[in-house]
């Protein structure tokens, strides 16, 4: 699903006049005319938009946004654009979020789905190998 608002450079609260103006020469005029400029369609679209925005932000929080998941392929407009390295903390300015919130105290379930911290593992392995080498020598 396309985020028509983002592609037009608008917020979901944009007026019809703003949408019409932004849609000109945007390459999305057909979708805009059939969705955002039809009140019933826009209401339904806005509901879907809000849900996908929440899902996209939750996927980011749960670290389910990095891998080429079905979601990131089909709904890439709703995957928060900032990389975690650039934005380590949740920002209240991101759509659908109310923050800042404290980090959850619960630990995550160990799972291959979440990825491994390979640099740390490499350091541990090298350290153990060096210690073994030192003992055996």
């Amino acid at each position, binding site marked *: 699903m396309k985020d028509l608002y983002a592609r037009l450079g608008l917020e979901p609260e944009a007026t019809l006049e703003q949408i019409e103006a932004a849609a000109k020469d945007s390459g999305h005029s057909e*979708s805009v005319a059939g969705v955002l400029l039809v009140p019933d*369609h826009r209401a339904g*679209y806005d509901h879907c938009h809000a849900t996908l925005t929440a899902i996209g932000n939750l996927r980011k929080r749960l670290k389910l946004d990095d891998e080429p998941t079905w979601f990131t392929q089909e709904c890439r407009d709703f995957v928060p654009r900032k990389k975690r390295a650039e934005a380590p903390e949740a920002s209240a300015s991101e759509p659908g979020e109310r923050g800042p919130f404290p980090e959850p105290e*619960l630990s995550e379930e160990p799972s291959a789905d979440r990825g491994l911290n390979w640099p740390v593992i490499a350091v541990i392995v090298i350290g153990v190998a060096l210690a073994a080498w030192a003992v055996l020598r």
Partner: protein
Amino acid sequence: MSIGTSKLQGTRGDHKDQLANAVKLLLLWLAASDGDVDESEIEFADEHLPEAEESVSAEKLLGEIRAADLFRLEMALRVLGKESRELRASFLDMAVAMSMADREIAFTENHLLRFYADALFLGQDMLRARFRSVTGRDLPEPGDPGQAGFWDQGGQATRKRMPTSEESMRLAQAHTLLALSADTTLSELEQKYGELKKIFESERVAAMGPAAERVAAHRLERIEEAYLVVLAELSGGGS
């Protein structure tokens, strides 16, 4: 009243309460996600919203879901994600059943099911398998509400509902609910009825708390009603 504002904080309530409230919040998000809360969902909310003092309107229920912020939803997923694979799979069955409570799965419900499957470490393959087991159909693609054609074909708002308890269940609806074809045999009926009863039996979902039990019980009622309709038809007593 705000869903889970105190009970999902995670430090005071015991584990059972945390799990029950996590399940409730996630199921309510699913129930309200299509923006079209039906009678069974309102009934469900009536019985299980902690401070519900009277009949819950659709608007009120939707308001409560909107009041649940991302942190609480994230916490709910983390609480449930720490449970056994069997319990997480059982939750997914409840979620599928709730999403299909009115026969068709909405765009937002479809996305939430896919999200829950990933967030609970179950994956899309298991979701597809569980969806087929519970509904007898393949999980459809959600479609694209960003295209005008999606809305011209009805969008997610115009959906056929399952009959309420006051209405008689028609044969076609019973077949759909039992995931059976129109030319089903008695042995197929008995087999599918047994499979679905196992999925929704109370012992399997009891650990998830009253919200999941309520969803399972409601689904089981509908399954039993559908079973009797199809059985009557196969026995020559159908109308």
